[in-house]
Protein backbone atom coordinates (compact mmCIF):
# COMPACT_ATOMS: atom_id res chain seq x y z
CA UNK A 1 0.00 0.00 0.00
CA UNK A 2 1.33 3.40 -0.99
CA UNK A 3 -0.63 6.63 -0.59
CA UNK A 4 0.40 9.84 -2.34
CA UNK A 5 -1.05 12.48 -0.04
CA UNK A 6 -0.20 15.40 -2.33
CA UNK A 7 -1.43 15.06 -5.88
CA UNK A 8 -3.16 17.37 -8.35
CA UNK A 9 -5.31 16.94 -11.40
CA UNK A 10 -6.15 19.37 -14.18
CA UNK A 11 -9.43 19.94 -16.00
CA UNK A 12 -10.93 21.35 -19.17
CA UNK A 13 -11.35 24.87 -17.79
CA UNK A 14 -7.69 25.33 -16.95
CA UNK A 15 -5.01 27.02 -19.11
CA UNK A 16 -3.47 23.67 -20.03
CA UNK A 17 -4.48 22.24 -23.37
CA UNK A 18 -2.68 19.05 -22.37
CA UNK A 19 -4.71 18.54 -19.19
CA UNK A 20 -5.93 15.07 -20.11
CA UNK A 21 -2.43 13.96 -21.03
CA UNK A 22 -1.05 15.20 -17.72
CA UNK A 23 -3.78 13.48 -15.72
CA UNK A 24 -3.18 10.25 -17.62
CA UNK A 25 0.56 10.59 -17.08
CA UNK A 26 0.07 10.88 -13.34
CA UNK A 27 -2.00 7.74 -13.21
CA UNK A 28 0.36 5.86 -15.51
CA UNK A 29 3.44 6.85 -13.50
CA UNK A 30 1.57 6.02 -10.31
CA UNK A 31 1.01 2.49 -11.56
CA UNK A 32 4.72 2.11 -12.23
CA UNK A 33 5.68 3.43 -8.81
CA UNK A 34 2.98 1.41 -7.08
CA UNK A 35 0.80 4.24 -5.82
CA UNK A 36 -2.43 2.79 -4.50
CA UNK A 37 -4.29 6.06 -3.95
CA UNK A 38 -3.67 9.61 -5.14
CA UNK A 39 -5.13 12.13 -2.66
CA UNK A 40 -5.52 15.18 -4.85
CA UNK A 41 -6.78 18.71 -5.09
CA UNK A 42 -7.68 21.07 -7.91
CA UNK A 43 -6.93 24.74 -7.30
CA UNK A 44 -9.92 26.37 -9.00
CA UNK A 45 -9.26 27.10 -12.66
CA UNK A 46 -5.47 26.90 -12.28
CA UNK A 47 -5.30 30.58 -13.14
CA UNK A 48 -7.55 30.71 -16.18
CA UNK A 49 -10.42 32.72 -14.76
CA UNK A 50 -9.12 33.52 -11.26
CA UNK A 51 -5.63 33.29 -9.73
CA UNK A 52 -4.38 29.86 -8.73
CA UNK A 53 -3.90 30.87 -5.13
CA UNK A 54 -6.89 33.23 -4.95
CA UNK A 55 -9.55 31.12 -6.66
CA UNK A 56 -13.03 32.56 -7.08
CA UNK A 57 -16.01 30.73 -5.56
CA UNK A 58 -17.21 29.72 -9.01
CA UNK A 59 -13.83 28.29 -9.96
CA UNK A 60 -13.56 26.48 -6.65
CA UNK A 61 -16.91 24.86 -7.21
CA UNK A 62 -15.98 23.73 -10.71
CA UNK A 63 -12.62 22.34 -9.62
CA UNK A 64 -14.04 20.52 -6.64
CA UNK A 65 -16.90 19.14 -8.72
CA UNK A 66 -14.46 17.90 -11.34
CA UNK A 67 -12.41 16.19 -8.66
CA UNK A 68 -15.50 14.57 -7.18
CA UNK A 69 -16.16 13.25 -10.66
CA UNK A 70 -12.65 11.83 -10.87
CA UNK A 71 -13.10 10.23 -7.48
CA UNK A 72 -16.29 8.59 -8.67
CA UNK A 73 -14.72 7.39 -11.91
CA UNK A 74 -11.62 6.02 -10.14
CA UNK A 75 -13.06 4.82 -6.83
CA UNK A 76 -10.03 2.72 -5.96
CA UNK A 77 -7.42 5.19 -7.12
CA UNK A 78 -8.38 8.81 -6.44
CA UNK A 79 -9.47 10.70 -3.33
CA UNK A 80 -10.06 14.42 -2.98
CA UNK A 81 -9.26 17.38 -0.80
CA UNK A 82 -11.91 20.07 -0.79
CA UNK A 83 -10.34 23.38 -1.83
CA UNK A 84 -11.72 26.49 -0.14
CA UNK A 85 -10.86 30.18 -0.06
CA UNK A 86 -11.15 31.53 3.50
CA UNK A 87 -11.95 35.00 2.19
CA UNK A 88 -15.39 33.69 1.24
CA UNK A 89 -16.34 32.24 4.58
CA UNK A 90 -19.93 31.17 4.03
CA UNK A 91 -19.08 29.77 0.62
CA UNK A 92 -16.17 27.86 2.14
CA UNK A 93 -18.36 26.27 4.77
CA UNK A 94 -21.01 25.33 2.22
CA UNK A 95 -18.39 23.91 -0.11
CA UNK A 96 -16.90 21.84 2.69
CA UNK A 97 -20.29 20.44 3.50
CA UNK A 98 -21.01 19.61 -0.14
CA UNK A 99 -17.63 18.03 -0.87
CA UNK A 100 -17.17 16.10 2.37
CA UNK A 101 -20.70 14.78 2.07
CA UNK A 102 -19.80 13.85 -1.49
CA UNK A 103 -16.90 11.70 -0.36
CA UNK A 104 -13.86 13.96 -0.16
CA UNK A 105 -11.55 13.11 2.68
CA UNK A 106 -9.66 16.30 3.55
CA UNK A 107 -9.36 20.06 3.23
CA UNK A 108 -6.86 21.91 1.06
CA UNK A 109 -5.84 25.41 2.04
CA UNK A 110 -3.48 27.01 -0.43
CA UNK A 111 -2.42 30.64 -0.14
CA UNK A 112 -5.52 32.83 -0.17
CA UNK A 113 -5.15 33.92 3.43
CA UNK A 114 -2.32 33.60 5.92
CA UNK A 115 -2.54 30.42 8.00
CA UNK A 116 -2.66 32.25 11.32
CA UNK A 117 -5.48 34.57 10.23
CA UNK A 118 -8.76 34.33 12.16
CA UNK A 119 -10.65 33.68 8.92
CA UNK A 120 -9.10 30.24 8.79
CA UNK A 121 -10.57 29.25 12.15
CA UNK A 122 -14.10 28.41 10.96
CA UNK A 123 -12.64 26.07 8.36
CA UNK A 124 -10.61 24.30 11.01
CA UNK A 125 -13.72 24.02 13.16
CA UNK A 126 -15.43 22.16 10.31
CA UNK A 127 -12.34 19.94 9.97
CA UNK A 128 -12.54 19.17 13.68
CA UNK A 129 -16.21 18.32 13.49
CA UNK A 130 -15.84 16.16 10.40
CA UNK A 131 -12.59 14.49 11.48
CA UNK A 132 -10.63 15.35 8.36
CA UNK A 133 -7.06 16.65 8.03
CA UNK A 134 -6.03 19.96 6.48
CA UNK A 135 -3.28 20.06 3.87
CA UNK A 136 -1.81 23.56 3.96
CA UNK A 137 0.36 24.97 1.18
CA UNK A 138 3.58 26.20 2.76
CA UNK A 139 6.45 28.33 1.52
CA UNK A 140 9.37 26.94 3.48
CA UNK A 141 10.60 30.05 5.29
CA UNK A 142 8.91 32.92 3.56
CA UNK A 143 11.37 35.80 3.75
CA UNK A 144 9.18 38.25 1.85
CA UNK A 145 5.88 38.53 0.07
CA UNK A 146 5.69 36.66 -3.21
CA UNK A 147 3.38 37.82 -6.00
CA UNK A 148 0.31 35.78 -6.73
CA UNK A 149 -0.13 34.28 -3.30
CA UNK A 150 -0.52 35.08 0.37
CA UNK A 151 1.80 32.27 1.29
CA UNK A 152 2.21 30.96 4.80
CA UNK A 153 5.29 29.45 6.30
CA UNK A 154 5.66 26.80 8.95
CA UNK A 155 5.70 29.33 11.78
CA UNK A 156 2.24 30.55 10.80
CA UNK A 157 0.98 27.00 10.34
CA UNK A 158 2.32 26.20 13.80
CA UNK A 159 0.25 29.05 15.24
CA UNK A 160 -2.86 27.69 13.56
CA UNK A 161 -2.10 24.13 14.65
CA UNK A 162 -1.68 25.27 18.25
CA UNK A 163 -5.13 26.84 18.10
CA UNK A 164 -6.73 23.67 16.71
CA UNK A 165 -5.15 20.77 18.52
CA UNK A 166 -7.79 18.29 17.37
CA UNK A 167 -7.09 18.89 13.69
CA UNK A 168 -4.22 17.15 11.95
CA UNK A 169 -2.37 19.47 9.60
CA UNK A 170 -0.15 18.47 6.71
CA UNK A 171 2.73 20.85 6.15
CA UNK A 172 2.82 20.79 2.36
CA UNK A 173 5.78 19.85 0.19
CA UNK A 174 8.80 20.07 2.44
CA UNK A 175 10.79 19.59 -0.77
CA UNK A 176 8.83 22.22 -2.63
CA UNK A 177 11.36 24.98 -2.44
CA UNK A 178 12.50 27.19 0.37
CA UNK A 179 14.33 26.59 3.60
CA UNK A 180 13.04 23.28 4.95
CA UNK A 181 15.38 23.54 7.93
CA UNK A 182 13.35 26.52 9.13
CA UNK A 183 10.10 24.61 8.69
CA UNK A 184 11.20 21.52 10.56
CA UNK A 185 12.31 23.58 13.53
CA UNK A 186 8.95 25.36 13.60
CA UNK A 187 6.78 22.24 13.82
CA UNK A 188 9.05 19.84 15.66
CA UNK A 189 7.07 20.03 18.90
CA UNK A 190 3.56 20.11 17.44
CA UNK A 191 2.16 16.56 17.40
CA UNK A 192 -0.76 17.52 15.14
CA UNK A 193 1.48 18.72 12.30
CA UNK A 194 2.63 16.09 9.80
CA UNK A 195 5.35 16.71 7.25
CA UNK A 196 4.45 16.03 3.62
CA UNK A 197 7.59 14.85 1.81
CA UNK A 198 6.49 15.92 -1.66
CA UNK A 199 8.10 18.50 -3.92
CA UNK A 200 10.81 18.57 -6.55
CA UNK A 201 13.53 19.09 -3.94
CA UNK A 202 15.65 16.00 -3.28
CA UNK A 203 18.32 17.54 -1.11
CA UNK A 204 20.84 15.23 0.44
CA UNK A 205 20.21 15.31 4.17
CA UNK A 206 16.61 16.47 3.96
CA UNK A 207 15.02 13.12 4.76
CA UNK A 208 17.42 12.53 7.63
CA UNK A 209 16.51 15.96 9.01
CA UNK A 210 12.79 15.21 8.68
CA UNK A 211 13.19 11.98 10.60
CA UNK A 212 15.21 13.73 13.24
CA UNK A 213 12.64 16.49 13.63
CA UNK A 214 9.34 14.63 13.66
CA UNK A 215 10.13 10.91 13.41
CA UNK A 216 8.62 8.39 11.03
CA UNK A 217 5.32 8.74 12.91
CA UNK A 218 4.72 12.21 11.47
CA UNK A 219 5.98 11.83 7.91
CA UNK A 220 3.70 11.36 4.93
CA UNK A 221 4.85 10.33 1.48
CA UNK A 222 3.76 12.36 -1.53
CA UNK A 223 4.80 13.64 -4.93
CA UNK A 224 3.02 16.89 -5.89
CA UNK A 225 4.06 17.76 -9.46
CA UNK A 226 7.10 15.51 -9.76
CA UNK A 227 6.54 11.80 -9.35
CA UNK A 228 10.18 11.10 -10.15
CA UNK A 229 11.38 12.93 -7.06
CA UNK A 230 8.72 11.25 -4.96
CA UNK A 231 9.88 7.86 -6.11
CA UNK A 232 13.50 8.81 -5.43
CA UNK A 233 12.67 9.79 -1.86
CA UNK A 234 10.74 6.56 -1.39
CA UNK A 235 13.70 4.54 -2.64
CA UNK A 236 16.04 6.32 -0.27
CA UNK A 237 13.61 5.89 2.63
CA UNK A 238 13.66 2.16 1.94
CA UNK A 239 17.37 2.32 2.79
CA UNK A 240 16.92 4.54 5.84
CA UNK A 241 13.98 2.89 7.55
CA UNK A 242 13.04 -0.50 8.83
CA UNK A 243 9.88 -2.15 7.58
CA UNK A 244 7.55 -0.87 10.26
CA UNK A 245 8.64 2.74 10.02
CA UNK A 246 8.64 2.60 6.24
CA UNK A 247 5.03 1.42 6.26
CA UNK A 248 4.14 4.36 8.49
CA UNK A 249 5.47 6.81 5.94
CA UNK A 250 4.09 4.96 2.93
CA UNK A 251 0.52 4.70 4.16
CA UNK A 252 -0.14 3.89 7.80
CA UNK A 253 0.21 7.48 9.02
CA UNK A 254 -2.18 8.59 6.29
CA UNK A 255 -4.64 5.87 7.18
CA UNK A 256 -4.50 7.09 10.78
CA UNK A 257 -5.26 10.75 10.11
CA UNK A 258 -7.76 10.52 7.26
CA UNK A 259 -11.31 9.29 7.95
CA UNK A 260 -11.56 5.58 8.73
CA UNK A 261 -13.22 4.67 5.45
CA UNK A 262 -10.98 6.84 3.29
CA UNK A 263 -8.89 4.11 1.69
CA UNK A 264 -9.84 0.80 0.09
CA UNK A 265 -7.72 -1.44 2.26
CA UNK A 266 -8.78 0.21 5.48
Amino acid at each position, binding site marked *: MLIDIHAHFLHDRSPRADWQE*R*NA*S*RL*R*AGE*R*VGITVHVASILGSWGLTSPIYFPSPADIEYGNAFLLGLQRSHPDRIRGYCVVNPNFGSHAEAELRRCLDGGMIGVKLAASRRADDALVDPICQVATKRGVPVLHHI*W*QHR*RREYPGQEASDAGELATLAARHRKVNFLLAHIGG*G*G*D*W*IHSLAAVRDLPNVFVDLSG*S*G*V*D*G*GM*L*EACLDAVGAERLLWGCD*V*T*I*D*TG*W*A*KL*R*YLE*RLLGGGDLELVKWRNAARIFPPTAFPAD
Partner: protein
Amino acid sequence: MRLDVNSFVGSYPFRRVPGTSSDALLRAMDRVSVQEAWVTHLPGIFWRDPAAGNPWLYQTVEKHDRLRPVPAVHPGLAGWERVLGEAKAAGAPAVRCDPTYYGIDPVGSGMQALAQACAAEGLPLMLAVRLEDARQRHPNDRASELPPSSVRALIRIDPRLRLVVTHADRGFIEEVHFGSTLEESGRIWWDICWIWGPPEDHLATLLHTVGVERFVFGTGQPLRLPETSVAKLDLLDLTAEQRAAIESGNVVTLSKAKGPKPKLSSTPSRSLP
Protein backbone atom coordinates in the same frame (compact mmCIF):
# COMPACT_ATOMS: atom_id res chain seq x y z
CA MET B 1 27.21 0.64 -17.20
CA ARG B 2 25.96 3.77 -15.47
CA LEU B 3 28.25 6.79 -15.35
CA ASP B 4 27.47 9.89 -13.29
CA VAL B 5 29.03 13.01 -14.82
CA ASN B 6 27.81 15.29 -12.04
CA SER B 7 28.97 14.50 -8.54
CA PHE B 8 30.99 16.14 -5.81
CA VAL B 9 33.23 15.40 -2.88
CA GLY B 10 33.93 17.70 0.02
CA SER B 11 31.74 19.77 2.29
CA TYR B 12 29.13 22.32 1.29
CA PRO B 13 29.44 25.70 2.97
CA PHE B 14 25.77 26.62 3.26
CA ARG B 15 24.20 23.68 5.05
CA ARG B 16 25.02 20.32 6.53
CA VAL B 17 25.13 17.64 3.84
CA PRO B 18 25.78 14.02 4.79
CA GLY B 19 27.94 11.78 2.65
CA THR B 20 30.50 14.22 1.29
CA SER B 21 33.58 12.00 1.66
CA SER B 22 34.87 9.92 -1.21
CA ASP B 23 34.06 6.72 0.66
CA ALA B 24 30.50 7.90 1.24
CA LEU B 25 30.20 8.85 -2.40
CA LEU B 26 31.27 5.35 -3.41
CA ARG B 27 28.68 3.86 -1.08
CA ALA B 28 26.01 6.07 -2.61
CA MET B 29 27.16 5.03 -6.07
CA ASP B 30 26.79 1.39 -5.06
CA ARG B 31 23.32 2.15 -3.75
CA VAL B 32 22.15 3.27 -7.19
CA SER B 33 24.44 1.07 -9.29
CA VAL B 34 26.68 3.83 -10.61
CA GLN B 35 29.94 2.31 -11.73
CA GLU B 36 31.90 5.49 -12.35
CA ALA B 37 31.54 9.13 -11.36
CA TRP B 38 33.08 12.37 -12.50
CA VAL B 39 33.73 14.37 -9.36
CA THR B 40 34.52 17.94 -8.46
CA HIS B 41 35.87 19.36 -5.21
CA LEU B 42 32.73 21.01 -3.87
CA PRO B 43 34.13 23.56 -1.42
CA GLY B 44 36.55 24.81 -4.05
CA ILE B 45 33.67 26.25 -6.06
CA PHE B 46 33.29 28.83 -3.31
CA TRP B 47 36.98 29.58 -2.85
CA ARG B 48 38.67 32.66 -4.27
CA ASP B 49 40.94 30.25 -6.14
CA PRO B 50 38.77 27.24 -6.99
CA ALA B 51 41.77 25.42 -8.49
CA ALA B 52 43.31 25.25 -5.02
CA GLY B 53 41.03 22.28 -4.41
CA ASN B 54 42.33 20.37 -7.42
CA PRO B 55 45.41 18.79 -5.79
CA TRP B 56 43.21 17.26 -3.10
CA LEU B 57 40.80 16.11 -5.79
CA TYR B 58 43.56 14.43 -7.79
CA GLN B 59 44.90 12.69 -4.69
CA THR B 60 41.42 11.51 -3.78
CA VAL B 61 40.48 10.06 -7.15
CA GLU B 62 43.90 8.43 -7.44
CA LYS B 63 42.83 6.13 -4.61
CA HIS B 64 39.60 5.09 -6.31
CA ASP B 65 39.41 3.59 -9.77
CA ARG B 66 35.75 4.51 -10.08
CA LEU B 67 36.23 8.24 -9.63
CA ARG B 68 37.51 10.62 -12.28
CA PRO B 69 38.46 14.23 -11.60
CA VAL B 70 36.74 17.26 -13.03
CA PRO B 71 39.06 19.99 -11.81
CA ALA B 72 38.07 23.64 -11.52
CA VAL B 73 39.57 26.44 -13.58
CA HIS B 74 39.23 30.15 -12.82
CA PRO B 75 40.15 32.03 -16.00
CA GLY B 76 40.46 35.29 -14.14
CA LEU B 77 43.51 34.13 -12.19
CA ALA B 78 46.99 34.22 -13.68
CA GLY B 79 48.33 30.81 -14.54
CA TRP B 80 44.97 29.23 -15.27
CA GLU B 81 46.36 27.72 -18.47
CA ARG B 82 48.61 25.57 -16.29
CA VAL B 83 45.52 24.12 -14.64
CA LEU B 84 44.36 22.86 -18.02
CA GLY B 85 47.69 21.17 -18.54
CA GLU B 86 47.44 19.49 -15.17
CA ALA B 87 43.93 18.36 -15.99
CA LYS B 88 45.07 16.74 -19.21
CA ALA B 89 47.98 15.10 -17.47
CA ALA B 90 45.65 13.72 -14.82
CA GLY B 91 43.33 12.25 -17.41
CA ALA B 92 40.45 14.52 -16.47
CA PRO B 93 37.45 13.84 -18.69
CA ALA B 94 36.47 17.52 -18.44
CA VAL B 95 37.26 20.70 -16.56
CA ARG B 96 34.68 22.90 -14.93
CA CYS B 97 34.12 26.57 -14.48
CA ASP B 98 31.18 28.08 -12.62
CA PRO B 99 31.56 31.75 -13.47
CA THR B 100 28.66 33.12 -11.47
CA TYR B 101 29.96 31.40 -8.34
CA TYR B 102 33.43 32.80 -9.04
CA GLY B 103 31.97 36.26 -9.50
CA ILE B 104 33.10 36.67 -13.10
CA ASP B 105 31.22 37.50 -16.27
CA PRO B 106 29.96 34.20 -17.81
CA VAL B 107 30.76 35.52 -21.28
CA GLY B 108 33.59 37.90 -20.40
CA SER B 109 37.07 37.81 -21.84
CA GLY B 110 38.26 35.25 -19.30
CA MET B 111 35.50 32.79 -20.16
CA GLN B 112 36.08 33.35 -23.86
CA ALA B 113 39.76 32.57 -23.43
CA LEU B 114 38.95 29.48 -21.38
CA ALA B 115 36.49 28.27 -23.99
CA GLN B 116 39.10 28.66 -26.70
CA ALA B 117 41.74 26.90 -24.64
CA CYS B 118 39.43 23.99 -23.80
CA ALA B 119 38.59 23.69 -27.48
CA ALA B 120 42.26 23.68 -28.43
CA GLU B 121 43.13 21.11 -25.77
CA GLY B 122 40.16 18.91 -26.59
CA LEU B 123 38.83 19.16 -23.04
CA PRO B 124 35.08 19.42 -22.54
CA LEU B 125 34.08 22.36 -20.35
CA MET B 126 31.48 21.72 -17.66
CA LEU B 127 29.22 24.41 -16.19
CA ALA B 128 26.45 24.17 -13.61
CA VAL B 129 23.33 26.29 -14.01
CA ARG B 130 22.81 26.11 -10.25
CA LEU B 131 23.66 23.87 -7.34
CA GLU B 132 20.54 24.40 -5.20
CA ASP B 133 16.99 25.62 -5.76
CA ALA B 134 17.11 29.41 -5.68
CA ARG B 135 14.25 29.50 -3.17
CA GLN B 136 16.16 27.67 -0.49
CA ARG B 137 19.63 29.10 -0.74
CA HIS B 138 21.36 30.60 2.27
CA PRO B 139 20.76 34.36 2.52
CA ASN B 140 24.46 34.92 1.90
CA ASP B 141 24.58 32.51 -1.06
CA ARG B 142 23.89 35.16 -3.67
CA ALA B 143 25.57 33.99 -6.88
CA SER B 144 23.17 34.27 -9.77
CA GLU B 145 22.23 31.26 -11.84
CA LEU B 146 24.01 30.71 -15.13
CA PRO B 147 21.97 32.42 -17.87
CA PRO B 148 21.05 30.46 -21.02
CA SER B 149 22.41 33.28 -23.16
CA SER B 150 25.89 32.59 -21.81
CA VAL B 151 25.79 28.98 -23.00
CA ARG B 152 24.64 30.12 -26.44
CA ALA B 153 27.47 32.63 -26.54
CA LEU B 154 30.15 30.23 -25.35
CA ILE B 155 29.33 27.47 -27.81
CA ARG B 156 29.78 29.95 -30.70
CA ILE B 157 33.35 30.82 -29.67
CA ASP B 158 35.09 27.83 -31.19
CA PRO B 159 33.70 25.02 -33.36
CA ARG B 160 35.81 22.50 -31.48
CA LEU B 161 34.41 23.40 -28.05
CA ARG B 162 32.29 20.82 -26.22
CA LEU B 163 30.15 21.84 -23.26
CA VAL B 164 28.56 19.74 -20.52
CA VAL B 165 25.84 21.72 -18.75
CA THR B 166 24.49 20.38 -15.49
CA HIS B 167 21.45 21.23 -13.33
CA ALA B 168 19.50 22.74 -16.25
CA ASP B 169 15.73 22.53 -16.48
CA ARG B 170 13.55 22.14 -19.55
CA GLY B 171 13.15 25.85 -20.27
CA PHE B 172 16.88 26.47 -20.12
CA ILE B 173 17.69 23.54 -22.39
CA GLU B 174 15.07 24.47 -24.97
CA GLU B 175 16.22 28.08 -25.03
CA VAL B 176 19.80 27.07 -25.72
CA HIS B 177 19.10 24.16 -28.03
CA PHE B 178 16.67 25.92 -30.31
CA GLY B 179 18.66 29.13 -30.06
CA SER B 180 21.67 27.40 -31.57
CA THR B 181 22.46 25.89 -34.95
CA LEU B 182 22.44 22.14 -35.30
CA GLU B 183 26.21 22.19 -35.40
CA GLU B 184 26.37 24.21 -32.20
CA SER B 185 23.75 22.27 -30.26
CA GLY B 186 25.48 19.07 -31.32
CA ARG B 187 28.41 20.05 -29.13
CA ILE B 188 26.38 20.52 -25.94
CA TRP B 189 25.47 17.70 -23.55
CA TRP B 190 22.95 18.09 -20.75
CA ASP B 191 22.77 16.13 -17.53
CA ILE B 192 19.30 14.97 -16.55
CA CYS B 193 19.31 15.69 -12.82
CA TRP B 194 17.13 18.83 -12.83
CA ILE B 195 14.64 17.84 -15.54
CA TRP B 196 11.16 16.93 -14.35
CA GLY B 197 9.60 13.55 -14.98
CA PRO B 198 5.88 12.73 -14.93
CA PRO B 199 3.24 14.03 -14.86
CA GLU B 200 4.78 17.10 -16.53
CA ASP B 201 7.05 14.78 -18.55
CA HIS B 202 9.69 17.36 -19.33
CA LEU B 203 12.41 14.75 -19.78
CA ALA B 204 10.28 12.64 -22.09
CA THR B 205 9.49 15.73 -24.13
CA LEU B 206 13.13 16.78 -24.39
CA LEU B 207 14.29 13.32 -25.40
CA HIS B 208 11.79 13.56 -28.25
CA THR B 209 12.39 17.17 -29.30
CA VAL B 210 16.08 17.64 -28.56
CA GLY B 211 17.24 14.06 -28.95
CA VAL B 212 18.42 11.21 -26.76
CA GLU B 213 21.98 11.78 -27.91
CA ARG B 214 22.20 15.13 -26.14
CA PHE B 215 21.63 13.82 -22.61
CA VAL B 216 23.93 12.21 -20.08
CA PHE B 217 23.33 10.70 -16.69
CA GLY B 218 24.12 13.04 -13.81
CA THR B 219 22.91 13.30 -10.25
CA GLY B 220 24.38 16.30 -8.43
CA GLN B 221 25.10 14.01 -5.47
CA PRO B 222 25.60 14.37 -2.57
CA LEU B 223 23.72 17.67 -2.66
CA ARG B 224 20.87 15.75 -4.30
CA LEU B 225 19.66 12.18 -3.89
CA PRO B 226 21.14 10.14 -6.75
CA GLU B 227 18.02 7.97 -6.74
CA THR B 228 16.24 10.80 -8.54
CA SER B 229 18.05 10.46 -11.85
CA VAL B 230 17.55 6.71 -11.84
CA ALA B 231 13.86 7.13 -11.07
CA LYS B 232 13.50 9.55 -13.99
CA LEU B 233 14.82 6.91 -16.36
CA ASP B 234 12.76 4.13 -14.78
CA LEU B 235 9.64 6.18 -15.46
CA LEU B 236 10.39 6.45 -19.18
CA ASP B 237 9.64 3.92 -21.89
CA LEU B 238 13.13 3.77 -23.35
CA THR B 239 14.66 1.08 -25.49
CA ALA B 240 17.69 -0.61 -24.04
CA GLU B 241 19.84 1.26 -26.55
CA GLN B 242 18.40 4.65 -25.61
CA ARG B 243 18.87 4.00 -21.93
CA ALA B 244 22.42 2.83 -22.44
CA ALA B 245 23.16 5.93 -24.47
CA ILE B 246 22.02 8.22 -21.66
CA GLU B 247 23.64 6.21 -18.92
CA SER B 248 27.04 5.93 -20.56
CA GLY B 249 27.12 5.79 -24.34
CA ASN B 250 26.71 9.51 -24.93
CA VAL B 251 29.60 10.19 -22.59
CA VAL B 252 31.84 8.16 -24.86
CA THR B 253 30.79 10.36 -27.74
CA LEU B 254 31.34 13.44 -25.61
CA SER B 255 34.78 12.32 -24.55
CA LYS B 256 35.85 11.05 -27.97
CA ALA B 257 38.35 8.80 -26.31
CA LYS B 258 38.60 5.22 -25.22
CA GLY B 259 40.84 3.23 -23.00
CA PRO B 260 41.45 2.54 -19.33
CA LYS B 261 41.47 5.23 -16.72
CA PRO B 262 45.01 6.63 -16.52
CA LYS B 263 46.77 6.95 -13.21
CA LEU B 264 47.86 10.33 -11.91
CA SER B 265 51.45 9.60 -12.78
CA SER B 266 50.67 9.02 -16.44
CA THR B 267 50.66 12.03 -18.65
CA PRO B 268 48.51 12.05 -21.73
CA SER B 269 44.79 12.28 -21.47
CA ARG B 270 42.88 9.30 -22.75
CA SER B 271 40.16 7.15 -21.53
CA LEU B 272 36.74 6.06 -20.70
CA PRO B 273 35.78 2.50 -20.21
